[in-house]
C-alpha cells in the first residue's frame, strides 16, 4: 500500500513530463479530431491555440502536484507506520533487477520533495505563462521537470548501487536541461556546462565510492553492501569519495561553484526545486552512504564534516551578502545552510563514534530538521524571487525598492521567508538552529581534548553565521521592498494577479510559521528516522507535554513556541491598545524631512553595496574585491569632473585557487597528449603496430 503511493508519485511525475510533450502536437490533434468528425464543440474549443496551451500547462502541473501529494502521503505513511518496505522491479539488467526499499529515511525525504513539488506545481501555471513562445518551448520545460522530479524520487527509493546511479543520473541530466533552458545567452550555456561537468565528476566519485564497497561484497544491492566489514582505511576512502560526490551536488565549499552559476539562470520554480530539494537529495545520499551502508562511523569523518560545514556556512553567507543578483544571493545562502546541516551532521557522527547514540540522535534531528526547514524557506524565497522577477523583469537588488507598496501580498510572503532564514524565534529556522546549539553544548561528554575545544569554536562560527544571515536578509528585504524605487521597472510593478502563484508561496509561508510554532509535529517524525537508522531516538521528547520542546531533558533546555507566541500577542496587543485609545493621536502623514534641501531622490538612499560596505571592510580578505572609482575628466587641464563611476566587483576565491589551476592543468595535459595526435595515418598505423607488439610480449 505504501509502495503503491510511492510508485504513483513517481509515475505521476513521469506522466506529467510526458504530457508536456503533447504541447507540440496541437495541430496533429486538431487534424485527428477533424478526421474523427466528432462534433463536440467543447472539445473543439479546447484545441484553440491559447486555450490548448493553458490547458496543457494546467494539466501538466496538476499531475506534478498530484505526484507531490502522493509523495507526501507515502512519506507520512511510512514514517507513521515506521516500517520498511522492499520490492524488486524487473527493470534494468537481467541479472540485477532494480531493488526498491522504502524506509523512514526515504520517507522523510519523500515528504520534503512532496511538499516542495506541491507548492511548485501550484505556482507553476502562472509563472510559465511567459514560456509559450517557440524559443522557450513549454514541452521541454515540462518534460524535464517531470523527469527531474521522478529522478529525485527514484534516488530515494533505490536499494542497489546500480539503480541508485541510474536515478541519480536521471536527476542530474534532467536538471542540466532545465538549467540550459534559456540557452540563448552564452553565460547560461556556460553555467549549464559547469553544472553538468561538476555533476558528472561528482557522479564518478559516487560510483567509485560504491565501487570500494562493492569490491568487498557479493553484489550491488545495498543489503550486500551493508554486510561488508571494511578496514578503517578502505572505509575512509569510501567516505571521502562519497563526500566528494555528494558534497559536489550539495554545494559544499570549495565545490560549490556550480550553485551560484546554475541557480540564477534556471526558471525560478526550477531553481526552487534545485536549491530546496535536489541539494537535500544529495544530503540523503550522504546520510544513506555513511550512516547506513558504511555502518560504523569514525569520529574523524565527523571532524571533516564539521570543518567543511563551518567553512561552507561562513563562506556561503559572506559571499551571499555581496551579491547584487537576488537568485545568486539565494544560491550562496543555500551553500550556507548546507554548511550548517553538514556541521550538525558532523557533530552527530562525532557523538555516534564516541558512544553517545542519544546525542547523535539529537544532532541528526537538528540536521534533518534544518534540511526540512531549508527546503521550505528556500523554496519560498526562490518562488518569491520568481514573482519579483515576473513583475519587474529584474533580479538586480540595486535596481529595486519600494515594492512593499506595490506588491503587498508578495512582500508579506517574502518577509516570512526572510525571517525564517534569519532564524528568528517563532519561525521554523530558529528551531533547527536552537537544536544545533543544543547539540554543540553537549560537548562536555566527550573525552577527546581536541574535539572538546574544536566544537565550541564551531558553535561560535555558527553564531556568527546566524547573525550574518540576519544582516544579509535585512539587506535583501530592505533593498527590494522598502525605501523608494530605484528604477522605472519597479515603478511600474504591480501585485501578482495569479492566485496559484500566491497560493504556492502562501502554502510554504504557512508551513514555515506552523512548524515554527509546532515543531513537535515534524520532530516526532524525525525521531522515527533516527530510531530506525541510528538505533537511538531522543529521550523524553514529550517530557513536558506536546507544547514543549525539550530535546535532552526538561532541566537542560526547553522551548515552548506556542507560549512564546501567546506572550508576544499579549504584549503586542496591550501596547497597541494602550497607545491607540487616545483619539487625538491619529497618525498624520507628511513629507519626509529632507533637511531643508528639497527633494529626496532614490539615489540618496543606501544601496546594496553601501549597506554591505562595513562588512566588506571588516572581512575584506574573504573576497577578491575589485573596487575603483573612475572619473570622466574634461577641460583643458582635465580639471573638471564630468561624471564619476563607481565600479565594484566581488569574486570568489575558489576560482583562482582551485579551478583555474585545474583548468590550466587540463589544458597543458591536452596539449601534451595532442602531440601524439599527428593526424597522419602512418603514425597511427605505427601506434597500432607498437601496441600489438607490446601486447604479444606481455601475453607471451
Amino acid at each position, binding site marked *: 500500500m505504501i509502495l503503491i503511493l510511492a510508485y504513483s508519485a513517481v509515475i505521476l511525475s513521469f506522466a506529467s513530463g510526458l504530457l508536456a510533450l503533447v504541447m507540440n502536437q496541437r495541430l496533429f490533434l486538431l487534424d485527428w479530431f477533424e478526421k474523427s468528425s466528432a462534433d463536440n464543440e467543447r472539445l473543439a474549443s479546447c484545441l484553440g491555440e491559447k486555450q490548448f496551451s493553458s490547458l496543457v500547462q494546467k494539466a501538466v502541473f496538476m499531475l506534478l502536484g498530484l505526484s507531490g501529494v502522493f509523495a507526501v502521503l507515502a512519506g507520512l505513511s511510512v514514517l507513521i507506520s515506521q516500517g520498511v518496505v522492499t520490492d524488486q522491479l524487473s527493470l534494468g539488467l537481467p541479472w540485477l533487477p532494480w531493488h526498491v526499499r522504502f524506509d523512514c529515511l526515504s520517507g522523510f525525504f519523500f515528504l520534503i520533495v512532496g511538499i516542495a513539488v506541491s507548492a511548485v506545481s501550484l505556482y507553476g501555471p502562472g509563472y510559465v505563462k511567459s514560456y509559450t513562445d517557440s524559443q522557450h518551448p513549454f514541452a521541454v520545460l515540462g518534460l524535464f521537470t517531470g523527469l527531474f522530479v521522478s529522478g529525485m524520487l527514484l534516488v530515494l527509493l533505490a536499494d542497489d548501487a546500480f539503480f541508485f546511479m541510474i536515478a541519480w543520473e536521471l536527476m542530474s541530466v534532467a536538471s542540466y536541461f532545465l538549467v540550459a533552458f534559456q540557452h540563448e545567452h552564452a553565460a547560461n550555456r556556460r553555467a549549464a556546462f559547469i553544472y553538468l561537468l561538476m555533476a558528472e565528476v561528482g557522479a564518478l566519485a559516487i560510483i567509485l565510492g560504491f565501487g570500494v564497497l562493492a569490491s568487498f561484497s557479493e553484489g550491488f544491492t545495498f543489503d550486500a553492501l551493508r554486510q561488508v566489514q571494511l578496514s578503517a582505511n578502505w572505509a575512509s576512502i569510501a567516505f571521502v569519495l562519497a563526500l566528494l560526490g555528494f558534497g559536489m551536488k550539495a554545494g559544499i565549499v570549495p565545490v560549490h561553484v556550480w550553485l551560484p552559476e546554475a541557480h540564477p539562470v534556471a526558471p525560478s520554480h526550477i531553481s526552487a526545486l534545485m536549491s530546496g530539494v535536489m541539494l537535500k537529495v544529495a544530503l540523503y545520499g550522504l546520510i544513506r552512504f555513511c550512516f547506513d551502508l558504511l555502518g560504523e562511523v569514525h569520529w574523524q569523518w565527523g571532524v571533516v564534516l564539521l570543518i567543511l560545514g563551518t567553512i561552507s556556512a561562513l563562506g556561503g553567507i559572506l559571499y551571499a551578502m555581496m551579491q547584487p543578483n537576488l537568485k545568486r544571493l539565494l544560491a550562496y545562502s543555500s551553500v550556507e545552510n548546507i554548511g550548517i546541516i553538514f556541521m550538525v551532521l558532523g557533530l552527530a557522527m562525532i557523538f555516534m563514534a564516541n558512544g553517545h547514540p542519544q546525542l547523535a540522535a539529537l544532532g541528526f534531528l537538528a540536521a534533518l530538521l534544518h534540511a526540512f526547514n531549508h527546503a521550505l524557506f528556500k523554496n519560498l524565497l526562490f518562488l518569491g524571487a520568481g514573482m519579483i522577477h515576473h513583475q519587474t523583469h529584474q533580479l538586480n537588488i540595486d535596481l529595486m525598492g519600494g515594492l512593499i507598496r506595490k506588491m503587498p501580498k508578495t512582500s508579506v510572503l517574502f518577509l516570512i521567508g526572510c525571517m525564517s532564514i534569519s532564524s528568528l524565534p517563532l519561525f521554523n529556522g530558529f528551531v533547527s538552529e*536552537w537544536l544545533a546549539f543544543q547539540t554543540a553544548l553537549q560537548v562536555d561528554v566527550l573525552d577527546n581534548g581536541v574535539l572538546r575545544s574544536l566544537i565550541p*569554536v564551531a558553535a561560535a562560527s555558527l553564531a556568527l553565521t546566524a547573525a550574518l544571515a540576519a544582516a544579509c536578509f535585512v539587506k535583501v528585504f530592505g533593498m527590494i521592498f522598502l525605501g523608494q524605487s530605484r528604477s522605472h521597472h519597479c515603478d511600474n510593478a504591480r501585485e501578482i494577479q495569479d492566485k496559484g502563484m500566491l497560493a504556492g508561496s502562501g502554502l510554504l509561508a504557512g508551513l514555515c510559521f506552523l512548524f515554527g510554532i509546532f515543531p513537535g509535529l515534524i520532530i516526532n517524525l524525525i525521531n522515527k528516522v533516527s530510531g530506525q537508522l541510528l538505533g537511538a531516538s531522543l529521550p523524553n521528547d514529550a517530557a513536558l507535554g506536546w507544547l514543549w520542546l525539550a530535546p535532552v531533558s526538561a532541566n537542560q533546555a526547553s522551548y515552548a513556541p506556542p507560549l512564546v507566541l501567546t506572550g508576544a500577542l499579549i504584549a503586542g496587543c496591550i501596547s497597541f491598545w494602550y497607545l491607540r485609545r487616545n483619539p487625538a*493621536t491619529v497618525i498624520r502623514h507628511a513629507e519626509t524631512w529632507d533637511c531643508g534641501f528639497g527633494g529626496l531622490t532614490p539615489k540618496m538612499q543606501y544601496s546594496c553595496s553601501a549597506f554591505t560596505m562595513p562588512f566588506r571592510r571588516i572581512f575584506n580578505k574573504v573576497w577578491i574585491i575589485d573596487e575603483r572609482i573612475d572619473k570622466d575628466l574634461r577641460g583643458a587641464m582635465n580639471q573638471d569632473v564630468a561624471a564619476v563611476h563607481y565600479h565594484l566587483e566581488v569574486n570568489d576565491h575558489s576560482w583562482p585557487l582551485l579551478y583555474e589551476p585545474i583548468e590550466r592543468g587540463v589544458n597543458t595535459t591536452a596539449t601534451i597528449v595532442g602531440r601524439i595526435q599527428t593526424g597522419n595515418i602512418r603514425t597511427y598505423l605505427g601506434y597500432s603496430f607498437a601496441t600489438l607488439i607490446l601486447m604479444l610480449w606481455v601475453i607471451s
Partner: protein
Amino acid sequence: MNWLIAILQTILFVALSPLLAGWVKCCKCWLQNRKAPSIFQPYRDLLKLTYKQPVVSEQASWLFIKAPYVIFSATVLAATVVPLIAVDLPTSASADVIVMVGFFAFARFFLALAGLDIGTAFGGMGSSREMTISSLAEPAMLMAIFTLTMTASTTNLSLAIAHVLNEGLILRPSFVFALSALILVAVAETGRIPVDNPSTHLELTMIHEAMILEYSGRHLALIEWASQLKLMLYGVLIANIFFPWGIAQSFNPQDLAYGLMAIMAKLAVLAIVLAISETLVAKMRLFRVQEYLSFAYLLGLLGMLSHIILEASR
C-alpha cells in the same frame, strides 16, 4: 503562583527600566559637573510622547508603523526570560537563553527594516551599521552565555543562576572571561560610548539614533522604552549571572522584597560604573568597533575554552 510571579516580574522590569535610564543620566551629569535632571525624567518623556500626534512620512509602509510594537513586544518577551528578583520562573523554561538572544535579534531585524523603510540616507546608514555591529556582538554574547550554560549544564536561565548560587563563591577563570565579554557586548548592544552615543545626532557617528530618526509620538516612545528595557536587561544579565547573591529562591514576600532591593542596588552600582566609563572613554571610530567586538568574541571563546579545558569535570 509561578506564572503570577513571572508576570509581575515582567511588569516590574518594564516599569523600572526608565528609572535605570534616568539614574544613569543623573550619574553622568554629576560626574560631568552638570545639573542633573530628575531621575524620573524618562517617565515624563515617555508620557509626553504617548500624548503627541505621531507624524509619519508619506513614504512609510505598514512595516514602519507596526515595527515599534514588534520591537517593544520582542524586548518585553526577552525580559520575561531573565530572572529579576526570583529564580525558578516558568517563563525561563518556555524560552531559554538562546531564545532570549533570538528575541533581541527579532527586535533588531525590525528596527533595521524600519530604518530602511523611508528611504533616507540616515536610516540606511543606521541599519547598515547596526547590523554590522550586532552581527559581531551577537556571537560574542552567545559565547559568553554558553560559558554559563555549560557550567550549569542547562540553557534555562533560572536553573543556571540557581546553579551558580548554590555553588557558592568560586573564582572561575571562565567566568572572568565571560563577564568581560558580556560587558563589552552590553556596551555595544545598548549603544553606549565608546561604540555609539545615545545623546548625539551627529551623522558621522550615530547608529541607533539614525534608524529611529523618522519616528515620533507613541512610536518613538515604544522604541525608546524598548531600548531602555534593553539596557536594563543587559544590566540584570550581568548582575544576576555573575553576582547572583540576593536573588530570591523562594516566593515568600520577604525574600522577594529582599531580591528587589538586591537587584536595585546591583543595578545602581552597575549604572555608576557605566557612567564613569562613559565619562572617561571617548567614542571610537566606527571601524575600530570591529576590533573591540572581535576582542569581546575572543574573550567569550576563551571563556568557553577555559571552562572546557580547566573546569569541566569528566
